[in-house]
């Protein structure tokens, strides 16, 4: 206590309104610190095997002591006698640096040293070294930051120190326990924008800090002035677009929707340290915590590659502060605890009970792994939360993406897991993240189509609904380039994921219609515009499919995937999603399927035709009832086209009068190539996909027969043959024939 | 043994990595084999240092002994210093005296001591007639500072000396004077040539690195190498520019030779040239002042890097003579002006 008192005397906290009680907190913090260090060393002994680590622990304790001395030294300030000053200073600096980079510093130590660094007691070189090693062991207390900011007003530190401080703030933002008081200083930070050197960093910091209530007309004006003065700097642009996002009415200037990264990775100074902090925060919780929360929190030891997974573990501030106070009982804990932290949240009812006081983790990335918190984020719709999450996501995606890290591509596994988690969260929310969209824009051109294929394509399938023609050049054209030059397996997976994409868009749109809320004004999508978008997407897939079939020499395997797209999604849009849209497949797919050698393809085709018929008749009925026609969606062309296909099918399979109306084939050609009976050769009996059925049908009837004459199937036998086909599982064919062919016309 | 010497020894030993401890102590040859055997080298470094200092105390080590240890450490870690090359010249027609190492040492030391009073000079003979000199500087009224010494490596009977760069620039003229007088030269000039790799500097200065080159037939190894390449290669891969490739190889080899290049880690070019353009337009054309710019090349092994530029297809062969003249001109700091 003696030393603590001395320290208080010597420290010269600048007087600002926020800090009237800073003396007291200092003292408290000091005590707390001692408790902490005691408990820390004991728990360490408990965890590790005592023999092996006792030496290590000794060394750690020594370092700890040295650190204490060093911290006290800095606090007292430099001695007048300069002879020995340099050496001692150097020694203490080294101590602080080594401990900071190894274990991180406790909140109280950061508090003191941050004060020292910004108070200008030492030279700017020392200040910058101190700032560089302000690495938290776990968290940074908000008060320290507020105090530090107050030093900026006194003007004792030079420009470069200020810059470094802001960079530090940005880098450590997620580790600051609360932000409310810091947010109160918003005006101060905003004023600092005028300093040209500080501006980019302050912008970045404000980008993280801004809440809706911070957006004020006068600030917008100021920002626009700044932009006029300094030109279109990406950082100003970022802040402006954030403001516009919060309050679109305030900013009438149109900002181009830039999708690139606004801020350079300013925090790379601390990058390795941050990984370490994250790792530390992720370590299994120490003993007292487990007791409080019950056995459910015991986390299984993760496998090695997962041990520093990219996603931080839930760790909200108040909680970790509390557990430092030894001897607090569970009841105390629960009763005094107003904010309900993320780690405590275990069930949905809990979420409902505490939804008013839920405290989100200090590191936003952690919500990705927690479905309850995802629920919460989804329903509170607090833009600043979402923005923080998106910001974190885009940074992480950008930094970890393996094709940007040529040297580091062995961490593919880790990145894959990360993408998987994102996709899981997207599936859970049934919604794509903005940051993933931006990531796709940026990285799709560089993607080789192979690594993380499944994840990457799934990201595509969660691409948020948007105007197709607008995003086509950035996403779909590039995808097409890859598509046409890659293997058939790649083509199949692309089709599969585009199917998912279509489904997501359709769901989104059908929800939208029911809610009658076309909320997103930025998209400025009218309803017919949205329909046009979906239409174009389907058209695009049709184009891809037709050409893919040519490239892969009409592979049946691929054709299955193509028909699947139409069967599962396209043909039933009107009935399933209640959207007035029917898009038929292109002829290249239709005829290929009709002339296929594979009976299941033919069956699939029949089923699709059947569904189209149902949708079209339903649409027609509604049109008649409502007396209103959505002209674009159901042009008479669609019906014509359908009828055309239908005629061709019936002509081939049933009436044995193929291709009469369209006159695609000159009968002379068939004569020339020696197919005399071309008329019947595509009917249900002679069709190459069904011929084997016809033969087995006949063999079943006449097992003794040596030669079978398939042409004998007609009249009554034709009906028996049909039943035989249906019994063999050709349900699509059955539905098609029942719905589209009147039975009187048996050939 | 006074406290200053003990502290000096302690700090020097602390610098030595554990893996090299035994080798360096043996090279020092101050503590006997049997004394060293009494020490447990598996202990923590702090206590090991304590034991060693105790032993030195018993043997009454003096500053000179400690300085020798420091020289040996520096010899092992010579790449941690940046070395400048100095060239000395004689008056034309001056006699070639016989070189006497003893005389050199004593006159060198005498000159420094006369000027400064407080200075400690330590010599250690090294291979190839070289002598390592360690100078800890003091002033008339201040004891020598053992922690900021200057190291000089002088090859006897040559006009070259290598001096570790230090912040004490004021001492350089005096040092030069002592060197010229002691080695019976007339003038000393600092060359624009410096590197961390003392041995490479030496090899370039004494033209030792490519010696066998002249006697070797240049064409044979080249052909052999090409043959080797062809065998490894798939016959379905055809190099269209094989002749050009050969030319590049040959030109590169003519310039750099067959053997590994000495290591330098940087080269610096200061340009002070006027802007010239065929189109007499633009603000630059009217500028009277020369344009100043600094181009710095750096690499862990600059000469090897330069050597591989053309074969890797990153630059045209032959390279600009400005880049390839480093070993011939024995300089890596250039100033380029309009000529």
């Amino acid at each position, binding site marked *: 206590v003696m030393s603590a008192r001395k320290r208080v005397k010597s420290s010269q906290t600048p007087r600002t309104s926020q800090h009237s009680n800073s003396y007291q907190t200092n003292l408290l913090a000091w005590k707390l610190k001692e408790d902490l260090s005691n408990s820390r060393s004991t728990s360490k002994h408990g965890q590790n095997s005592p023999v092996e680590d006792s030496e290590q622990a000794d060394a750690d304790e020594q370092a700890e002591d040295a650190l204490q001395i060093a911290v006290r030294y800095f606090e007292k300030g430099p001695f007048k006698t300069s002879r020995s000053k340099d050496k001692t200073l150097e020694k203490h600096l080294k101590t602080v640096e080594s401990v900071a980079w190894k274990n991180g510093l406790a909140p109280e130590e950061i508090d003191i040293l941050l004060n020292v660094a910004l108070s200008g007691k030492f030279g700017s070189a020392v200040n910058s070294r101190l700032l560089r090693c302000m690495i938290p062991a776990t968290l940074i207390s908000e008060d320290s930051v507020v105090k530090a900011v107050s030093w900026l007003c006194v003007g004792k530190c030079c420009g470069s120190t200020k810059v470094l401080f802001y960079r530090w703030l940005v880098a450590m933002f997620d580790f600051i326990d609360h932000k409310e008081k810091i947010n109160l200083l918003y005006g101060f930070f905003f004023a600092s924008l005028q300093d040209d050197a500080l501006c980019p960093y302050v912008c970045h910091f404000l980008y993280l800090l801004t809440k809706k209530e911070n957006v004020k007309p006068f600030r917008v004006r100021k920002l626009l002035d700044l932009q006029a003065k300094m030109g279109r700097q990406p950082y100003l642009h970022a802040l402006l677009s954030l403001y516009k996002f919060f309050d679109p009415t305030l900013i009438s200037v149109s900002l181009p929707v*830039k*999708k*690139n990264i606004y801020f350079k990775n300013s925090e790379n100074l601390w990058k390795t340290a941050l990984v370490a902090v994250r790792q530390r925060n992720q370590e299994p919780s120490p003993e007292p915590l487990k007791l409080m929360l019950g056995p459910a929190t015991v986390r299984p030891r993760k496998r090695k590659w997962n041990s520093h997974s990219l996603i931080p573990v839930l760790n909200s501030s108040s909680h970790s502060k509390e557990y430092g106070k030894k001897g607090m009982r569970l009841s105390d804990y629960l009763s005094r605890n107003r904010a309900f932290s993320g780690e405590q949240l275990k069930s949905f009812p809990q979420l409902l009970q505490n939804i008013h006081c839920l405290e989100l983790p200090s590191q936003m990335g952690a919500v990705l792994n927690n479905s309850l918190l995802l629920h919460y984020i989804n329903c509170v719709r607090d833009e600043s939360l979402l923005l923080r999450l998106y910001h974190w996501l885009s940074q992480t995606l950008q930094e970890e993406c393996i*094709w*940007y*890290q*040529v040297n580091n*591509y062995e961490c593919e596994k880790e990145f894959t897991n990360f993408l998987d988690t994102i996709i899981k969260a997207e599936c859970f929310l049934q919604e794509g993240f903005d940051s993933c969209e931006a990531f796709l*824009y*940026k990285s799709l*051109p*560089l993607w*080789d*189509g*192979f*690594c993380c294929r499944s994840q990457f394509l799934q990201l595509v399938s969660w691409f948020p609904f948007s105007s197709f023609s607008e995003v*086509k*050049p*950035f996403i*779909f*054209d590039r995808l*097409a*380039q890859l598509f*046409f*030059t*890659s*293997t058939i397996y790649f083509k199949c997976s692309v089709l599969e994921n585009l199917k998912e994409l279509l489904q997501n868009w359709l769901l989104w749109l059908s929800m939208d219609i029911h809610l009658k809320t076309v909320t997103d004004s930025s998209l400025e999508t009218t309803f017919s515009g949205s329909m046009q978008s979906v239409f174009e997407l389907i058209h695009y897939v049709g184009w891809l499919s037709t*050409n893919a079939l*040519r*490239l892969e*020499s009409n592979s049946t395997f691929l054709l299955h995937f193509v028909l699947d797209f139409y069967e599962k999604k396209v043909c039933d849009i009107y009935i399933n999603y209640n959207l007035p849209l029917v898009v038929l497949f292109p002829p290249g797919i239709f005829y290929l399927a009709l002339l296929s050698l594979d009976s299941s393809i033919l069956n699939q085709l029949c089923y699709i035709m059947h569904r189209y018929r149902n949708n079209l008749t339903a649409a027609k009925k509604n049109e008649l009832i409502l007396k209103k026609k959505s002209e674009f969606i159901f042009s008479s062309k669609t019906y014509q086209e359908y009828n055309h296909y239908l005629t061709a099918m019936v002509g081939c399979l049933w009436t044995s009068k193929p291709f009469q109306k369209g006159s695609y084939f000159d009968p002379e050609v068939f004569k020339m190539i020696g197919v005399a009976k071309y008329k019947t050769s595509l009917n249900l009996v002679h069709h190459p996909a069904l011929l084997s059925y016809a033969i087995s049908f006949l063999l079943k009837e006449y097992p003794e027969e040596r030669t079978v004459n398939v042409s004998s199937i007609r009249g009554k036998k034709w009906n028996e043959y049909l039943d035989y086909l249906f019994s063999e599982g050709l349900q699509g064919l059955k539905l098609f024939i029942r719905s589209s062919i009147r039975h009187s016309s048996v050939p | 043994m006074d406290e200053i010497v003990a502290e000096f020894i302690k700090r020097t030993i602390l610098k030595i990595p554990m893996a090299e401890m035994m080798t360096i102590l043996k090279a020092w040859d101050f503590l006997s084999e049997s004394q060293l055997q009494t020490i447990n080298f598996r202990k923590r470094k702090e206590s090991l240092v304590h034991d060693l200092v105790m032993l030195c105390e018993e043997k009454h080590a003096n500053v000179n002994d400690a300085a020798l240890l420091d020289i040996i450490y520096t010899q092992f870690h010579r790449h941690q210093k940046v070395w400048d090359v100095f060239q000395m010249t004689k008056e034309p027609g001056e006699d070639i005296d016989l070189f006497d190492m003893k005389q050199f040492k004593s006159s060198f030391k005498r000159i420094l001591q006369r000027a400064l009073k407080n200075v400690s000079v330590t010599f250690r003979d090294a291979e190839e007639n070289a002598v390592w000199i360690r100078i800890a500087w003091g002033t008339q009224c201040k004891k020598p500072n053992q922690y900021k010494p200057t190291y000089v490596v002088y090859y006897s009977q040559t006009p070259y000396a290598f001096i570790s760069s230090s912040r004490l620039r004021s001492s350089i003229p005096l040092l030069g004077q002592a060197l010229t007088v002691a080695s019976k030269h007339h003038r000393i000039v600092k060359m624009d040539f410096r590197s961390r790799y003392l041995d490479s500097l030496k090899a370039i200065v004494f033209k030792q690195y490519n010696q066998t080159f002249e006697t070797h037939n240049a064409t044979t190894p080249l052909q052999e190498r090409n043959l080797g390449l062809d065998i490894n290669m*798939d016959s*379905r*891969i*055809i*190099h*269209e*520019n094989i*002749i*050009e*490739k050969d030319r590049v190889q040959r030109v590169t080899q003519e310039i750099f030779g067959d053997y590994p290049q000495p290591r330098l880690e940087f080269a610096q070019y200061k340009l002070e040239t006027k802007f010239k353009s065929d189109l007499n337009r633009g603000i630059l054309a009217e500028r009277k002042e020369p344009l100043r710019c600094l181009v710095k090349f750096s690499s862990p092994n600059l000469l090897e890097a330069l050597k591989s530029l053309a*074969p*890797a*297809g*990153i*630059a045209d062969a032959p390279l600009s003579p400005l880049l390839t003249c480093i070993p011939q001109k024995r300089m890596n700091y250039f100033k380029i002006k309009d000529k």
Partner: protein
Amino acid sequence: MSVLRPQDQLPGLNAATILLVGKEDALLQPLADSMLKEDCASTLRVHLAHSLPLPSDVNRPRIDLIVFVVNLHSKYSLQNVEESLRHVDATFFLGKVGFLVTGAGRDSHCSVHRNSVLKLAQAYRSPLLFCDLEVEGFRVTMAQRLVRMLQICAGHVPGISALNLLSLMRSSENPCLEDL
């Protein structure tokens, strides 16, 4: 010296020949090796050249596809490609030319902006492929894609021609990355 023309020679039986143009052998050679390792029905040949025009005194098979390799880390490499392009007959640009860009992954090392290559590819109406050739995994996938393109350009895929492929690959004029 001579301009390279696609129709100068008759095709060899089942042969498909690609010409890779780029200064850096260390990048081209492994790519060529990876291509030859691909399982492919055609007889592949890979010609490597530093620049065009090619030496004229040599017999060489008909070239079905030219791929210009640009390393974004070196302005010299772009310059070299730009100069070489002048020695290619216009008919080659009907689907038998591609640009392969390497080094885009490491933004900080780039001395050529991606847009300048994009513009180059647009000006010559030819597809632009990105791949960091230094990374083996990426290189192998790229080799696979090149072999497929080569087979089409050599006319070994029935029903589809080089020009056909080009029109599939060259979607609506690619906008600059700046506009993203």
